[in-house]
């Protein structure tokens, strides 16, 4: 097969990329996904809260996806579902499905938009048994949506990121009792509005500075032991308490799904877990672009779609040999109180939107690029990603590596 632009992953990022590539003049655009339907994780997010910025509408996940899917259809984007991409090299993708077997797609540009996967229990090392009844939130969600099945009657959720919060409410809505949402950090991992709407409104206790220290049960989860943690996040002896439950749902973080890029030799950023990209969302592999949660974990779908658009458009321009690449890129590196910054490389020759995640809650914060203050904010927290536009004037005269620092009072 052949395509001008091949997009891996048909989530919010991939769909936006495909649409943008078409609009920017790419003729053959092919989008590939391993799932049964288009939309990535959106079809399983049946709550509202999508598209507030992008469409100025409060949509459900499936509604948000449908807008893009319809536009992609209208523009003539080709799609393959139930198709797993096995290998990626600049200019070529190897994939498998039932109709075509194992096949290659020659693509002049590739957009990598494979999303993120959920961190499994092994990675957090909770001792105890491994019976039935331990699920990642996304898996639990998918089974509820597709088969109307609930993971348990009495559920403990570990992790208070948005996914964990939304799932806790969903369980409660479907008739299960959510015994607690347990969070190891001293502050919730998800957005403030989700803490109110998903937990407080439903009377679900949120236990901050707590973690699960043991899982009990032979065939099925019977209980978990939780404990308070100290400021080094270590369980404090003597604070253990056992909560009976029949399911433990994990929402302990997402990891960009970058194996294919890694194998292809793309440079990665240890801070994001994703590839290093420039302001065109191009990776270190020429002609290979990346977008969405595959680059870093975004909290709102709108920004995911925007990175998809950037990547799709740049891919189309690359095919037409019209893409302007930063000649001497400025490297924006995370400095004080900053977990990561995306894109990592900017040209300085035009204004550019960047995404910043702080590493702890800060009051009276000032975001500084080098010694220039680029924004002040009364409060910044890790769950709330900061979107900033760096103007040409701010970038003027910068070269090499520049640190992005956030100053402020802790708390």
């Amino acid at each position, binding site marked *: 097969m052949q395509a001008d632009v091949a997009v891996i992953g048909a989530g919010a990022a991939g769909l936006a990329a495909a649409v943008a590539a078409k609009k920017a003049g790419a003729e053959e655009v092919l989008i590939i996904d391993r799932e049964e339907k288009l939309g990535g994780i959106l079809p399983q997010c049946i709550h509202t809260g999508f598209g507030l910025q992008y469409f100025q509408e409060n949509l459900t996940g499936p509604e948000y996806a449908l807008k893009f899917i319809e536009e992609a259809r209208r523009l003539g984007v080709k799609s393959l579902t*139930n198709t797993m991409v096995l290998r990626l090299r600049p200019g070529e993708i190897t994939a498998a499905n039932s*109709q075509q077997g194992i096949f290659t797609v020659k693509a002049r540009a590739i957009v990598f938009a494979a999303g993120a996967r959920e961190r499994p229990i*092994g990675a957090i090392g909770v001792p105890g048994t491994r019976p039935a009844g331990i699920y990642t939130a996304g898996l639990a969600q998918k089974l509820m949506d597709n*088969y109307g099945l609930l993971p348990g*009657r009495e559920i403990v959720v570990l992790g208070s990121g948005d996914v964990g919060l939304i799932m806790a409410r969903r369980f409660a809505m479907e*008739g299960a009792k959510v015994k607690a949402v347990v969070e190891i950090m001293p502050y919730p991992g998800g957005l403030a509005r989700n803490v109110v709407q998903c937990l407080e409104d439903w009377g679900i206790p949120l236990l901050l500075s707590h973690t699960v220290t043991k899982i*009990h049960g032979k065939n*099925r989860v019977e209980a978990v032991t939780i404990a308070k943690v100290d400021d080094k996040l270590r369980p404090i002896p003597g604070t253990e308490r056992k909560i009976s439950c029949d399911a433990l749902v994990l929402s302990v973080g997402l990891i960009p799904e970058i194996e294919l890029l890694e194998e292809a030799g793309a440079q990665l950023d240890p801070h994001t877990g994703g590839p290093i990209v420039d302001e065109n969302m191009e990776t270190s592999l020429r002609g290979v672009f990346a977008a969405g949660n595959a680059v870093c974990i975004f909290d709102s779908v709108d920004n995911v779609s925007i990175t998809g658009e950037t990547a799709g458009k740049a891919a189309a321009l690359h095919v037409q040999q019209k893409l302007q690449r930063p000649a001497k890129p400025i490297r924006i590196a995370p400095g004080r109180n900053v977990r990561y910054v995306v894109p990592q490389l900017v040209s300085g020759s035009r204004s550019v939107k960047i995404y910043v995640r702080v590493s702890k809650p800060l009051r009276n914060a000032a975001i500084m690029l080098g010694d220039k203050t680029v924004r002040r904010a009364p409060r910044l927290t890790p769950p709330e990603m900061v979107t900033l536009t760096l103007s040409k004037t701010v970038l003027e005269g910068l070269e090499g590596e520049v640190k992005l620092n956030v100053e402020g009072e802790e708390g």
Partner: protein
Amino acid sequence: MKIYDVAIIGAGITGTAIARELSKYKLKTLLIDKEVDIAFGGATKANTGIIHAGYDDPPGSNRAKYCPKGNSLWPKLAKELEIPFKQTSSFVVVFNEEDVKELENLLERGRKNGVPRLEIIHDKKRLAQMEPHLSPRAVAALWAPTAGIISPYEAAIALAENARENGVEIFLETRVERVKVENGEVKGVETSRGFIPAKVVVNAAGLYADEISRTAGVDYFTIHPRKGEYHIYDKRLGHLARRPLFPTPTPISKGIVVTPTVEGNLLIGPNARDISDKEDTSTTREGLDEVMRGAAKLIPGIEKYRRLIIRNFAGLRAEPSTRDFIVEAYDDPRGFINVAGIRSPGLTSAPAIAQAVAEMIAEKELLKLQKKEKFNPYRKAIPRVVEMPPSEANKLIKEKPEYGHIICRCEHVSEGEVIEAIRRGAKTIDGIKFRTRAGMGRCQGGFCTYYVLKILARELGVPEEKVTKRGKGSELFPYKIKELVRRDENAS
């Protein structure tokens, strides 16, 4: 009622190896296990997966007799049955000059046990070349070229499949309650599904072999569990060890090992803790930390990769009070054979023990052993579509399109492989996992569980909520949403 010649209790590596060995003969053989699938109930699914060379078992013991012999049988067996196996060799590593003496003792013991080609490498440079990530403090190692690594559950599954192909019957979800003995002779076994008559009963019940043996009137030993815990790492770290790396053995175990698995992950463990509950396969904070410390002596810096741990697990060794394998046919009751206390290196020893059981049956004239003319020694593994040459893969997918649908993101397992695993007897999520590796990769089933559950429900003709992780009581998603809501309405 059908009378079996032989009933084997326990479908771990020992029971399945015996079943396969006996399937070479014209016998009516039955293999029984209480669990829903092969190798589900004991040590066979949770161990280090090493085919030991056999240098550290006390000369003259059964362990010393069967381990090197088993080691020599595995390469051919693995080939015949397409079991993932690699002869990697192994190292026992020491960190100071005084301990080189210990290696010499082991070498000497190995010679007595008939272990071939042992060598002490007393050369830091050579060690570093052979194992680039081994601690630079290592001064010498005992090199055992015949050691290897294997997939232990796949080995048991392959042995069981081949035994069945050659006429052995398998009853799962059947618990043996006692051995029936009359006038000093074995008559069969009482089970949860009724009485099964058999002329010879082979007790390979792992941790429960002492209890079974007692019902037959043989009660000179007991078995207690000794727990071993593990961390298993993402394949990204598989390169940290090229072969099993041991410290010097302790009186109760071979010590905490760092080893690649045959599938390419890195495995560290086990520690050794004596416990009392034969069902307690939970991991503990202390145990997991102990394993980490042990491994860090061999591979310094390993504790930095906690994030790449994909799973922890624990296995229970069946430690006999006699401290040695009990492989014995009795005159009273006649027809009863114990294959008990099969602690480490039981995996390695299984094929040799199986031959010994056949010999005992012949020697004691319990049964007449006549070779079958049509014994088929071969078993084909489930085809791994992504590992085939592309033209072959595409031929298969054309014939059976389900092999083109990849449902596991980490190990790239196809729907066709899952269907084939079900055809061969998998009934649960874990059964699929052990047969195909779907769910064993870095995402630990986050992606594939949905598909595996769906395929299981469809192929077995059961509703999704009845699909289990590993048998009754472990239903994955036991409740329908509507039922729950209704239950609440009734309550209020």
